[in-house]
């Protein structure tokens, strides 16, 4: 997802929030530079989210729908609506696949 503008960093509290409908398990989430490191204790897997994916994930965790996330991303990253929504849907699909978001947050 192209952008040369910095995202607003989310607070640790934002990062730790669970989205509505999420299965209850504790990811360990850390901000590292502009990126996020997510450790899934169920699978002992460590994932790295680049800054765009990290922003999508934070907003989804805060309960925003993809359309709302796209709107936010459009404002922050100065991209057009269609591209923002496409990128957000791609990112959320991948995050759901990785079980970092519950399936219900897709739409």
């Amino acid at each position: 997802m192209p952008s040369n503008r910095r995202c607003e960093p989310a607070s640790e509290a934002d990062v730790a929030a669970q989205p509505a409908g999420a299965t209850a398990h504790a990811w360990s989430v850390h901000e590292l530079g502009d990126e996020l490191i997510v450790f899934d204790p169920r699978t002992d897997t460590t994932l790295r989210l680049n800054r765009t994916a990290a922003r999508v994930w934070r907003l989804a965790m805060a309960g925003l729908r993809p359309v709302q996330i796209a709107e936010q991303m459009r404002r922050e990253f100065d991209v057009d609506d269609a591209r923002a929504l496409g990128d957000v849907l791609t990112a959320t699909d991948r995050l759901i696949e990785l079980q970092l978001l519950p399936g219900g947050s897709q739409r």
Partner: protein
Amino acid sequence: MTALNAAVEALLVAAGPADGTCEDYQVGAIGVSLRTNCRAVRRAFEWSYAPYRVHQVARVVARLEARVAGSWWRGDRRYELTVNGRPGATVRRLDHVPSHLEWACNWAVAFAAPEWLQVHAACVQIGPVGVVLAGRPGSGKTTLAAVMTLLGAAYLCDEFALLDPATHRLEPFPKAMNLKEASIAVVNSLSSGLRLRASRTACGKGRVAVLPPHRVRADAIGRAVEPRLVVFPSFRPGAATRTRSILPAEALLRLERLSFNFLAHRAAGVDLLVRVLRECTCIELEYGDARRAARELMALASADGRRAGT
């Protein structure tokens, strides 16, 4: 046994076996004990580890035993090695024993010291800056660590970065460096006094020269230090020295892959690496000339140390 056999055996015993006493060595953070009934084994071990000998270590991580058995006369002379009470190896040649003991020691650290997050890396210290040279075998970690030590760095280890979860510091384990043949000329070119030569066969490394840090200079052994520069070296013959900054998140995933005991730490290990890497400069280094690369790293670390001091 004939009288002649008995006389030869007695001669060999006088030249070789010791009384089976146990000596302790505090090798940085790692307590080692060696029990042996062979004076030659003790001498070879002490050539590298004599400065670390202590009356008693607080905690033995590597309990090594090298027992000479069999008879030279009968042709079944052998050295039976155990580590932490488990059978290690049976070695036929005396000159192979020291490197087997060092590998036994590495094995013991990997399995008996879970309190540290262990990463496959060489580490040196330049002033207040801990430098981690992380990589797989053949990436040039030991060569860079040796050259940097010769250029004035303090040496911590050539195999393990031992990260303390409580202090976020690198703990020293200043075992002797094992330098492969290609690295020996580089090291000798920097010091006329060392005159290293390949004198041992090391497990998986072929012929190696052994370089204990105290033989470089008396103050060449480092102390616990915060890591500030994380380097992922790769040696390529003839390559120009080239560095590339990498993001700390990428460095974290690489360090995790190079960790010996990540699964003993899991989420706490990730947390530790995050906290450490927030304070670090992370780079990839490709090099063909170890002297030039080492000088570049020394300059980077010194600049980082000056920044930290201001």
